[in-house]
């Protein structure tokens, strides 16, 4: 029967097999709903960034005008550059700190190691609002007022705050990666004459690499879109992109806000894609 239908180039509508979930209606509905809930708002936001209307409620025609307007909004551009700078610095610091923390926790046994591991990961679960208030009070009480410093040093307080909440994420990801390390690899390197540092550099860091990339990606996106903690730790003149957009939205949701947000989304997607590609190539190299 099937050979006959093949001969006539007709797809055989056979019964749905036990593992052919993709042909079941409930799975298709679930997938469709998930995608709609996740991406409809984002797609709408992107579409309306091209809307030729000030109120931005009904579609009135296509235009690039609001991108132009966003680019010419010097405050917005400054906030954007601030955000990128903070994200860049805090990502590098978070990955280094996270990698070292993960390595210490994985490699050495010492008293209160479990306690250290727990407290290190605490910022992951502490509500952001608490972190924000705590950091604000901390910077006030210590007199660490960076608001008046020259760019980019006026961003120090925010950057420190970002490192504080994003490095535990990096540490957790890298620590998980280290669990799959075969200790015979490091012993073998040592046996061949490598010092402890050479073992770390030549054998352990290459193994950590996918974790480093994933950790960096996490830290970067966490920093780039953080609002709550930044709001509390930013002084006047140190606006970041999310905080700036918030202040713009308070007046009205113009397509300019949509345009700026679209740019942010595109940047995030590109960076994620690049990181995933890097990681994939790494995994393929390490497979088998």
């Amino acid at each position, binding site marked *: 029967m099937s050979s006959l239908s093949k001969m006539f180039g007709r797809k055989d509508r056979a019964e749905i097999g036990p593992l052919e979930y993709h042909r079941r209606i409930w799975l298709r509905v679930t997938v469709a709903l998930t995608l709609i809930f996740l991406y409809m708002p984002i797609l709408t936001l992107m579409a309306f960034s091209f809307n030729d209307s000030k109120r931005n409620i009904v579609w009135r025609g296509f235009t690039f005008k609001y991108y132009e307007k966003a680019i010419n909004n010097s405050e917005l551009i400054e906030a954007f550059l601030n955000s990128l700078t903070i994200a860049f610095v805090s990502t590098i610091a978070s990955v280094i700190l996270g990698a070292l923390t993960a390595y210490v926790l994985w490699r050495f046994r010492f008293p209160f190691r479990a306690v250290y591991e727990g407290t290190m990961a605490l910022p992951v679960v502490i509500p952001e609002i608490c972190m924000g208030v705590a950091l604000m009070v901390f910077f006030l009480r210590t007199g660490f007022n960076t608001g008046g410093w020259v760019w980019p040093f006026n961003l120090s307080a925010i950057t420190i705050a970002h490192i504080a909440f994003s490095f535990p994420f990096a540490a957790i990801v890298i620590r998980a990666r280290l669990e799959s390390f075969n200790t015979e690899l490091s*012993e073998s390197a040592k046996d*061949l004459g*490598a010092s402890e540092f050479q073992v770390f550099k*030549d054998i352990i860091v290459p*193994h950590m690499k996918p974790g480093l990339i994933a950790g960096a990606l996490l830290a970067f996106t966490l920093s780039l879109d953080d609002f709550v903690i930044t709001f509390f730790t930013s002084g006047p003149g140190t606006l970041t992109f999310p905080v700036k957009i918030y202040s713009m939205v308070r007046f009205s949701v113009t397509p300019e806000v949509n345009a700026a947000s679209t740019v942010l989304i595109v940047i995030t997607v590109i960076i994620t894609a690049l990181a995933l590609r890097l990681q994939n190539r790494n995994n393929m*190299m390490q497979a088998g």
Partner: protein
Amino acid sequence: MQSPAPSDAPIIEIKDVTKIYGSDVRAVDNVSLTVDRGEFFALLGPSGCGKTTLLRMLAGFETPTDGTVTIDGDNMADVQANKRPVNMVFQSYAVFPHMTVAQNVGYGLKIDGVARKEISARVEEALELVKLGGLGARMPDELSGGQRQRVALARALIKRPSVLLLDEPLSALDAKLREAMQLELVRLQKTVGITFVIVTHDQAEALSMADRIAVMEAGVVRQVASPAELYEHPTSRFVGDFIGQINLFNGNASPAGEGKVNVSAAPLSDQVLDGNVTGSVCLAVRPEKVSVSRDKPADNNLLSIQGTVADIAYYGGYSNLYVEVGAATPILAEITNAERGVGSGYAQGDTVWVSWRSEDTLLFAE
């Protein structure tokens, strides 16, 4: 460095070495051993007997709780693993997954700061030695298990160590490849002339490769001897039982003068045998020393007993006959299938005589 040791001194000297884990786990218990220069030495024992711990103490990954390890005349007490004149082939091969074969093999030389030109020449030479010539640019995941092991071998040998340590190197290979690698390792050892110390739980592997074997049990060395000596003259029931197959009978021995003892081990008839162990003893004989016949053997110098064939296991070249004689376990006799189509010539339920020469009988104190 001390003055170089004379070349006839043992290359490894393990003296009264004990390793205690936690508070009371004696992984290695007061072991003393010497390994001669250029020897192929095997540490053999069941899992958990301490053989790997002993090897790791030679490599420098474990520190003895007590005792000294001397390699090539130098006390290793304060020498870190990366400064020892030994190299190791790990059980998992531990080939670095992010480096090419050539980078793997050359890693030790690179660490030592050898010039790049010399490294590539020596890597090529080492790869030729393990028959991996031309595969230097491959990544480890493009190699088979056997090839990866050769990479590990080349990587360890390229530094020309005084001693090469091998931790269960063949356990991950399939039977055919394992046999080929056994011969290969022996050939390699003769070619490079480096002392090999191998850890294995496979007695056939140890017997076929090693010049000398140390049999370990529960952290203690039971016997150190050549393969033939171990097989034919085990000094304890454990060694006799662990190496190859053996028939055991519990019994008693009393002195019979002039290096002879009177042994009674039911259901065997009482015997006067060479030996000096008395009291509770264990009488033993290897299955290939046991003959089977339909009639009672005439020779009075033979130990013989009548029984019935309980089971026959056919292995092609030989058959194992299990003969029920009223002992705790049937007597195992290994019969060569010398004539085609006949097999052992016996059938289940046949009444037969099993016999062996009294010189082939082993006697262990219990």
